[in-house]
């Protein structure tokens, strides 16, 4: 699956986009956040307060219990501040 990061989350992780093979023990968005947090110090810092992170799957906002499939495009970011 494709995973994208935006704003300060992108800066902390140091990557804008990456391809990840959906791990076996990752069912939903919350699981993926946990899995990514363990991936390295940048990820740990980015996801340190997961409650402030928003997720989108296939360009729709989703809650953390949203189920994932390996063909999804997942994006993580802080609350939006456009307009």
């Amino acid at each position, binding site marked *: 699956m494709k995973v*994208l990061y*935006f*704003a*300060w989350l*992108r800066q902390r992780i140091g990557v804008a986009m990456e391809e990840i093979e959906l791990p076996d023990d990752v069912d939903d968005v919350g699981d993926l956040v946990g899995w990514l947090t363990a991936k390295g110090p940048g990820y740990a810092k980015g996801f340190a307060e997961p409650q402030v992170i928003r997720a*989108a799957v296939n*360009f*729709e*906002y*989703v*809650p953390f219990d*949203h189920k994932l499939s390996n063909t999804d*495009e997942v*994006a993580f*970011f*802080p*609350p*939006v*501040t*456009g*307009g």
Partner: protein
Amino acid sequence: MIKVQQDNFDVGAELADLTAGNYGIGGVVSFVGLVRDLIDVDGRDAALRAMTLEHYPAMTEKKLAEIEAEARSRWPLEASLIIHRYGRLEPGEQIVFVACAAAHRQAAFDACNFLMDWLKTDAPFWKLEETDAGEGWVDSRESDDEAAARWQIKPDRAAE
């Protein structure tokens, strides 16, 4: 109509295009958002040098089109337009433009106000501010969430 672009836009030309040939339009309400030169940094005024708007291209147009469709389902609009810029912008520059045209004025006012409120909370843009003291990402504002909540039912957030 939705436009997501780096370039500036010409408000007069956009409004003229929006209403051209449609004599059923009695009123057009529009909003232009501009970059201000003073921002709040930890409770103090700081001079803004520039602001950089990052967005999620594949999602932005989709969300803006959904927000526009929602407005058109709520109010009898003759025409509507959302333009949102991305990239680096300096004080005084135009960021966003929303226009709603209707037979009667209140529908145009309410739809335009609604579009701006939802755009603030639903469009995937993030602002990075640059001052003499450095850079910082703009925090989302509770007042924006409250403004969006005035219109009730936010399908995208319902699950959160």
